[in-house]
C-alpha cells in the first residue's frame, strides 16, 4: 500500500517530487521556523566565538558565579569563566557529535537495510533478527562498554563518542530502509534493470538507494537530536566528552537548590539544547510530511 501511494507525486508531470516537497515544506510554518532557528544556532555556535575571540577556559577568581549581566550575557560559572562562551563552544561539540554520529548511522544503516530488504527471505530474517536483538539490549550498555575502552587514554576525545553513539543508533535507520527497499524491489523499474542485465550491486546502488534517499534524510534529521540527547546522558554519568551542552546541563543540575541557586548554569544550556532539539524534531517532522504526503492529514 505504500508503493501505490508513493507513485502518485512522481507520476504527475510538471512538478518534480523535490519541488513539490519544497512547496509543502514552505507552507509548514513550524518546520520552517525550526529550520531558521537551527541555522541561527549553528551560526552562533560556530561563528560568534571566533568572531568575538571568546575563550571558554579563562578563569577569573574575582568574578565567580555572577548572574547574567551586560558584561556577561549568560553570567559566569563557579570558576569565573564566561558562560556565554562556554555554552557556545559546548554547542559546537554537541552539534558535531550529533552530525558525525548521524553520518555513521546513515552509512551503516542504509547499507545494512538495503541488503536485508533487497535479498529478503532468510537473509532478511536473520539480519533483522540481529537488529531486533540489539534493539532489545539496553543501548546504554553498548555505549558505556565502548566508551570504557577509550576512557583512560582518550579522555575528552569525541571520536569514541561518535563511534559509540553511531553504534546504537543505526538500528532504526536499518529497519526503515529495509522496509522501503522491501517494497521498492518489487517495482517495475527494478525488474527492467534486471532484464537489461544489471547485477545486484548495481541495482541496489543505482536504482534502489536513490529512491530511499528522502526517507533517509528525514530520519537523519531525527537521529541528530537522539544522538545529542544520548551524549548528554553520557556526560551526566561522567563518561562524555570534555565540553558539551550535556555536560554543562549536568553540572547545572548539580548546583541547583532552592536556597542558593545559580539558575543560569542550568537554564542557558538547557534552553539551547531544547531549542536545537525542538528545531530538529520539527524540521524532521515537517520533512516527513512534505516528502511523504500519505502521513499528512
Amino acid at each position, binding site marked *: 500500500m505504500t508503493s501505490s501511494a508513493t507513485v502518485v507525486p512522481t507520476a504527475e508531470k510538471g512538478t518534480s517530487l523535490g519541488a513539490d516537497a519544497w512547496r509543502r515544506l514552505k507552507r509548514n510554518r513550524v518546520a520552517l521556523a525550526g529550520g531558521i532557528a537551527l541555522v541561527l544556532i549553528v551560526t552562533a555556535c560556530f561563528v560568534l566565538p571566533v568572531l568575538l575571540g571568546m575563550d571558554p577556559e579563562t578563569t577569573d577568581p574575582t568574578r565567580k558565579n555572577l548572574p547574567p549581566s551586560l558584561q556577561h550575557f549568560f553570567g559566569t560559572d563557579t570558576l569565573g569563566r564566561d558562560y556565554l562562551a562556554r555554552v557556545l563552544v559546548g554547542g559546537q561539540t554537541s552539534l558535531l557529535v550529533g552530525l558525525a554520529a548521524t553520518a555513521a548511522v546513515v552509512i551503516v544503516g542504509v547499507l545494512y537495510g538495503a541488503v536485508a530488504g533487497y535479498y529478503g527471505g532468510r537473509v532478511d530474517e536473520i539480519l533483522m533478527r*540481529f537488529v531486533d536483538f540489539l534493539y532489545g539490549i539496553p543501548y546504554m550498555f553498548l555505549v558505556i562498554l565502548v566508551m570504557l575502552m577509550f576512557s583512560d*587514554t582518550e579522555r575528552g576525545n569525541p571520536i569514541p563518542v561518535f563511534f559509540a553513539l553511531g553504534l546504537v543508533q543505526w538500528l532504526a535507520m536499518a529497519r526503515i530502509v529495509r522496509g522501503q527497499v522491501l517494497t521498492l524491489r518489487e517495482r517495475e523499474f527494478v525488474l527492467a534493470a534486471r532484464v537489461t542485465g544489471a547485477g545486484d550491486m548495481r541495482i541496489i546502488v543505482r536504482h534502489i538507494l536513490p529512491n530511499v534517499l528522502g526517507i533517509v534524510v528525514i530520519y537523519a534529521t531525527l537521529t541528530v537530536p537522539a544522538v545529542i540527547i544520548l551524549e548528554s546522558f553520557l556526560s*551526566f554519568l561522567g563518561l562524555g566528552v570534555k565540553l558539551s551542552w550535556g555536560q554543562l*546541563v549536568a553540572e547545572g543540575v548539580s548546583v541547583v537548590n532552592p536556597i542558593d541557586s545559580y539558575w543560569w548554569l542550568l537554564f542557558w544550556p538547557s534552553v539551547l539544547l531544547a531549542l536545537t532539539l525542538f528545531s530538529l524534531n520539527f524540521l524532521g517532522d515537517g520533512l516527513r510530511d512534505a516528502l511523504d504526503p500519505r502521513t499528512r492529514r
Partner: protein
Amino acid sequence: MNESRFAGAQWMAIGVAVLTLVIGLAIGWREAAVIGLGTGFIAGTAWWSAAMVRVGGSLMLAGVVWIFAAPNLGPGAAALVVTGVAALTWKFLPTRVQRRVCFMLPSLVMLIFVTSMLMYMAPGNPFAQEKVASPQVEEALRKLYGVPRDPTEFFIIYMKRLVLEGSLGPAIKVQGRTVQDLLMPALPVSISLGLLALILACGIGLVLGIRAGLKPNSAADYSSMALAMVGISLPNFVIGAGLMIVFSLSLGWLPVAGWGGYPHLILPALTLALPYAAYIARLARGGTIEVMQQDFVRTARAKGLSESTIIVKHALKGAILPVVSFLGPAAAGILTGSFVVETLFGIPGMGQWFVKGAINRDYSVVLGTAIIYCTLVTAFNLFVDLAYAWLDPRIREER
C-alpha cells in the same frame, strides 16, 4: 517470488568471514574463532527447518530452566522438571516463538562473550587499582576470582560456573559477596521502577494520543503534540531536576531522592516515563487517525452506534497496535534511562551497579547486570510478540 532458498547466503558468509578477519587482526585469533563460529551458528539457525527449530528451541529452553532449577531443587528433581519443560514447549510453543528462542539464547551467550572481550580490551583491570601487589599475589587473586588474563579463558570459566552452578560468580570489588548478593536486592527496585514507568508511559501516552487523533488539527491535537514534543526534546535528567524542584523542594509533596517505599518511586518513574509517553502519544495519534478512516468505523457509524462505543469497541484496537509493537524498544529504553534516573534520584537499583561495575572494571558485576537486563528485555519482547499476534490476527499465521 521464486527465489532460491539460499539467495544472499553468500553475503552472510562474507559478513561472518570479514568479521572474523577484522577481529583476528585487531584482537586475537582465538577470540576471532569464537566470534566467527558463534555468529556463523546464529546465522545458520535461519536455515533450520521447522522440525529442527522445535527441537532446538525446546532443548535450549530446557537448558535455561536447568540453570535455575539444578542448584535449587537438586539434580534429580531438576531433571524431571527440565524433561517436562522440554516436552511441553516442544508440543505447544508456536514455531515462530521457537525460532526466536533459537536465535535469542545463542545471541545472549555471544553477548556475554563480546562483553567480556570489550572489558578485557578496556584499559585497566579489576586488580590494577589495589595497592601494588606482587605478580604472585595478583596471579593468586586472578585464580581465586576466576579472572585469567585471556578473555576466552575467562568466558569459559564464567559460562561453566553459570551453567553448572547457576551462579553469577563472586563480585571482585566487593569482597566476600557474590554478584547475586549484590543484584538480588536491587532487582525488585529496578523492576518496580521500570514497570511503573512503563504503565505511566502507556497511560499518559494513550490518553494524549487518542485525544489528539480523534480530532486531528484541533486545539486538543496541537496541545497534546506540543506536550509530546517537550517530552521528546528535553533530556530526562533535566525533566527530573525540574520535577524534583517543583514537587519536592518547593511544594514538599514528595520525597526528594533516595529509597524508602512507593512515594519515592513516583517522581523517578514519571521522569523515566515522559519521553516514552511522548513517543506513544505520537504513535497512538497516528493509529487512531488511520483506524477512524477505515470502512468498518463508517459501518459502525452507519449502524447508529454512539461515538463512544465506536471508540472503545473499534478504534481503540487500531490505536493500540502500533503502541504494542513499540513496547519492546520502550522497555529497553526505559531500562537504559533508568541508569540516569537512578543516579539522579539516588535509587539503589541495578543501573547503579552496572555503572559502578563498569568504572571499577568489576567484570562479574557488569556481566551479571548485562545478563539480567537482557534476559528481562528479551522475555518481555517475546511476550509483546505473542500479545501482538493475539491482537492482530493478520500476522498470526506467519511462517
